[in-house]
């Protein structure tokens, strides 16, 4: 307890420095705007804005990125409510009741409750994170390379098995990502692998370029369908953005119920904000005495998924920061940002760089407060960006993707690699192949192979090291269960259908 409090006060000392408050505010503001714009989610936002943080130093950069991550989660539902288009995947559930509320002339209450629910969900989860991060990291420190390898296998296969359409496609995406991670000079033997004799590939393919290609370029490509739409009509005149006592009475319990649900779903690999929000929504609908009001502007139907979504986004940071294993596309990008700054997330991060790890956690508290200010009193101003037509917006995003990619290594070859991945992303969308397993695999692939080889080195090439400890066996069981579970469910569903 004392340790946690002293850690937290160290973190707060860092986070409360004026310059860091400035960074988290800037990040929250940019994140909210990016989150609002349809087609641009937190992953794209962090990836595109990353080059701006290169000169800030690791603490400032990380705090800014956390602000962007956070702001995007708040912002995503603004557009769900006002124009019935989710700003990111996790905000889909906010369209179900948020938009009907706005249609009824209650846009102010909808905007307010979504910000309040996001705030409460995020705040409670951050406090839980403060108390759980160190124990998880301490436990993970006991992991040997074999355990670590299996942990990554579990996280990745759980993500792949979550694929909505087809588990096999999830795994195709996964293997593709791992294959990409093997390109380049092998650090241990000096053997050049899969470079096709191209000099620029010797250093490997930077996963940030993959992310920018898939998310920024790919998203823009996907969105061309709606680019010819005219400008949207957005409500810009609002009364005070606040809720009534009656609203609060209906919402406080759903918010408190959905927060732990969202947090837990967020910690699990593969599941993320979208799933957390949808689960919370269905859960509330089932519990409600008036389920028929859901979908027609029930305010608790907006509050619950919003709380769950923000709780999940905090929960998802735990495996990324303590184990070095991201569980979603967005946390993968956050991890990419950390690695870019020369910080290896994982159990040792809290020991080696407590100021950075705790500074980031403390800045999430500040970020939460900043974001609720941005999203309530200032919301009236910010929602005007929704009026920017897609035909102006997307070319600008393209421009940002290019400069972001170039700034990573100052290399033109990277620009071509990004274009290739943009097209791969487009094909994957056409073929219904999920992209997040590939992104996760691309980012942990290198570490995964390293653990694999270390384990075999320790055992002298004996494969039994991979099932030689209770932790290993537990992880194998979890992996098998995570793969077979959705398959069994699918079979059951088909049987029921036929």
């Amino acid at each position, binding site marked *: 307890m004392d340790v946690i409090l002293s850690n937290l006060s160290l973190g707060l000392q860092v986070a409360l420095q004026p310059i860091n408050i400035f960074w988290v505010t800037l990040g929250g503001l940019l994140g909210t705007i990016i989150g609002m714009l349809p087609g641009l989610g937190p992953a794209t936002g962090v990836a595109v804005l990353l080059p701006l943080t290169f000169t800030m130093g690791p603490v400032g950069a990380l705090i800014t990125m956390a602000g962007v991550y956070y702001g995007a989660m708040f912002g995503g539902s603004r557009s769900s409510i006002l124009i019935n288009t989710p700003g990111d995947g996790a905000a889909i559930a906010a369209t179900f009741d948020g938009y009907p509320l706005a249609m009824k002339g209650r846009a102010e209450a909808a905007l307010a409750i979504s910000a309040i629910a996001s705030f409460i969900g995020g705040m409670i989860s951050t406090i839980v994170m403060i108390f759980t991060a160190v124990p998880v990291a301490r436990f993970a420190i006991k992991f040997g390379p074999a355990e670590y390898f299996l942990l990554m296998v579990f996280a990745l296969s759980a993500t792949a098995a979550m694929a909505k359409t087809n588990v096999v496609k999830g795994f195709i995406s996964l293997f593709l990502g791992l294959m990409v991670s093997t390109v380049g000079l092998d650090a241990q*033997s000096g053997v050049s692998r899969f470079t096709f004799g191209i000099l620029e590939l010797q250093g490997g393919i930077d996963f940030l370029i993959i992310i920018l290609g898939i998310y920024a370029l790919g998203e823009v490509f996907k969105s061309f369908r709606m680019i010819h739409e005219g400008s949207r009509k957005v409500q810009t005149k609002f009364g005070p953005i606040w809720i009534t006592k009656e609203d609060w009475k209906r919402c406080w319990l759903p918010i408190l119920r959905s927060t732990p649900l969202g947090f837990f779903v967020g910690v699990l690999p593969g599941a993320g904000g979208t799933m957390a929000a949808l689960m919370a929504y269905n859960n509330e609908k089932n519990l409600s005495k008036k389920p028929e009001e859901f979908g027609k502007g029930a305010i608790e139907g907006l509050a619950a998924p919003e709380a769950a979504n923000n709780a999940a986004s905090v929960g998802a940071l735990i495996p990324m920061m303590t184990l070095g294993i991201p569980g979603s596309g967005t946390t993968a990008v956050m991890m990419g940002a950390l690695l870019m700054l020369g910080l290896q997330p994982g159990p040792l991060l809290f020991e080696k760089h407590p100021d950075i790890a705790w500074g980031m956690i403390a800045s999430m508290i500040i970020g939460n407060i900043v974001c609720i200010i941005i999203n309530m009193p200032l919301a009236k101003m910010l929602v005007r960006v929704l009026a920017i037509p897609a035909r102006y917006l997307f070319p600008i995003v393209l421009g940002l993707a290019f400069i972001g990619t170039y700034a990573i290594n100052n290399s033109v070859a990277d620009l071509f690699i990004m*274009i290739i991945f943009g097209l791969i992303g487009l094909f994957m969308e056409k073929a219904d192949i999920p992209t997040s397993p590939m992104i996760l695999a691309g980012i942990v692939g290198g570490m995964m192979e390293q653990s694999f080889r270390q384990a075999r080195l320790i055992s002298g090439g004996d494969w039994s090291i991979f099932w030689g400890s209770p932790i290993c066996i537990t992880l194998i069981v979890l992996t098998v269960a995570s793969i077979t579970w959705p398959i069994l469910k699918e079979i059951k569903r088909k049987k029921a259908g036929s």
Partner: protein
Amino acid sequence: MTINVITGILSLMIGLGYSYMAWTLPRATVGNPIAPSIFPLILGVGMTIMGIILLIQEKSQASKHEGKTVSFTLTQYGKSIAQVTLFCVLYAFFFERAGYLLSTFLFLVMVLYMFNGKERWKSILGISLGFSVGVYILFGEVLNIQLPRMPFLGL
């Protein structure tokens, strides 16, 4: 042919090709000579198996009902993608050769023109100029990252 069949065949080809390349990698001179190949081989075999499973799945599905087949006619959407991709490749090609300012300005003018047409030429020029100059100054002056200069004028 359905998109799943195409995906299956592609996965199979990638899996086999990758496995072959992994197997024929030069042997390491230190430590276990095949150490650099083992992990990639697992991946290659895994990908190949996934391709085969997907093809088998499709075959059993196809007998039940017709999957959506892929047409190769170029839609308006496909044309826009092809056009923008071409612009992107040209942009990447001229990024250093023509310098950041000029290449970015021209790239944005072309892409914006594609979607906005002639009538909005004022906005097109304004956004393109504002973005390229803005980013150039932000990176050069504030972030101290020198972007490629034009070979002439030295900008």
